């Protein structure tokens, strides 16, 4: 029989976190991809690719690929479950709220972090905060690229449609 390691580990790897780690959600490919971004953690070499389907400014589907630790995988899995059905702005607000929590601040009033609350313990392990943030930083990048490039392309298409 093996000794149970230090209980502090359980602050990091809570039940909900382990569940997302073992059975990550959002791995299936999307029928169409409107925004995508590749995130990389230079400290550890972990990689995440976020793909999003959007209908107007509403996220209709999310795929999370890549290779990362349990914390990174769980965080990405929670994201894939949480953001479909929400607007881009709402997804960005969740990313900002989660970042605040990871840096020891309280979540802004009214934000529901859902399963992400189980990652609260990560803040006690400074090096691991980046693991939890990687999918969310990548999501923010994907949405920014979509706004900068995608929005313009969409509006051009709409303008062309209007002229017909």
């Amino acid at each position, binding site marked *: 029989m*093996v*000794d*149970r*390691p*230090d209980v*502090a*580990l359980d602050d*990091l*790897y809570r039940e909900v976190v*382990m569940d997302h780690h*073992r059975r990550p959600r959002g791995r299936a490919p999307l029928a169409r991809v409107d925004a995508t971004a590749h995130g990389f953690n230079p*400290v*550890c*070499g*972990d*990689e995440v690719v976020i793909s999003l389907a959007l209908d107007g400014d509403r996220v209709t589907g999310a795929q999370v690929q890549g*290779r*990362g*630790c*349990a*914390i*990174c*995988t769980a965080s990405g899995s929670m994201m894939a479950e949480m953001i479909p059905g929400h607007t881009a702005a709402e997804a960005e607000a969740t990313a900002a709220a989660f970042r605040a929590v990871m840096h020891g601040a309280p979540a802004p009033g009214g934000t529901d972090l859902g399963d992400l609350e189980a990652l609260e313990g990560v803040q006690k*392990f400074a090096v*691991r905060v980046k*693991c939890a943030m990687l999918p969310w930083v990548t999501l923010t990048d994907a949405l920014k690229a979509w706004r900068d490039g995608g929005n313009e392309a969409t509006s051009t298409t709409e303008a062309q449609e209007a002229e017909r």
Partner: protein
Amino acid sequence: MAGTASPVVALDPRALRARFPILRRQVHGHPLVYLDNAATTQKPDTVLAALASYYTTSNANVHRGVHTLAEEATALYERCRSRVAAFVNAPDARGVVIVRNATEAINLVARSWGATLGDGDEVLLSEMEHHSNLVPWIMLARERGVALRHVPITADGRLDMAALAALLSPRTRVVSLTAMSNVLGTINPIAEIAAAAHRVGAVMVVDGAQSVPHMPVDFQSLGADFLAFSAHKMYGPTGIGFLVARPELLEAMEPVSGGGEMIREVRLDFASWNDIPHKFEAGTPNIADAAAFPAALDLLEATGMPAVRAHERELVGYALERLRALGWLQLHGPLDADARGGLVSFVDPEIHPHDLAQVLDTRGIAVRAGHHCAQPLMRRLDVAATARASFGIYNDRDDVDALVDGLVAARAYFGLAGESHG
């Protein structure tokens, strides 16, 4: 050389351990098991005392002062240089440039020797290099149009020597390779490669960051032109490292950093350079750490580098055997302990190295998890990261056993089967 070698007296890791105060501390309620020696080693009591003694009794600036303290500080600083020269059998202490670390030493070669290169010239590196022996050359390639070539590695993590021979040509101006991989542990046949490099007219740069601390290294018999290493990986202080070079090469090179100390004469619009090695040491150097480092060399010399190598060879052989017996780990690098230094990189296919290192940390075991500053090698091995245990003179079989128990415990923690097959 073999004929003159005295018999190797085995080192006593327990006795050595007592010399390192930090190894008495606890981590998360467990005695510290320090297995991250390839990143940095711990410091013995004599190095700590020498650091304190320098600041307590002899602190002054070097090379420019007639007062007693300045004279003492200069003597201590220069003593470090001659001790380092003797330790690696450099032809001349004038060929030892004191820098911050091995990285800075390689950058100095790439910038200064590299300035003589141009379009059509090639620098030969390998797939197993640390970023410190990749990025300075990438910078050179961007600036000067030099082409970079890379020796591939074989399936068991050795340099592909046939490919190396095919890559060498009269266009090859520099061959820069690690003597011991910080990820695979592979010990490369540097003397053979240096001879081949010289046949095509190239200079041989050796990244000795991992080899110099862990095995006998003889600059002259290796046939090296440049050798880079860091004090902090050999029981010395951080912030000091060395570029050992053939003095005639340094004579022909331009300094890369200008300022005090490195000059002979300065007018408002003109400067001439000091003699080697001083022309490469602009500004006040790291005097305190230079004063303290010989205490680390004392320890290594008293122990004997053949004994250090024999100890770590035995330990890595034991570690390979126990880790293989677990049955679920992927081990990277040669499985033959004779071909590798005292470190093992491994991956549990079910547990990310970060999570593994986190579990081990709660048991007081310090290993490294990540890409080990070798991202191209990680890509070649098709892993995002590995965990790495690396040994020093104070480690013993108990430390390997603690690691193995920790790896089994991690499996249990993550709800995975972890029955030992051995």
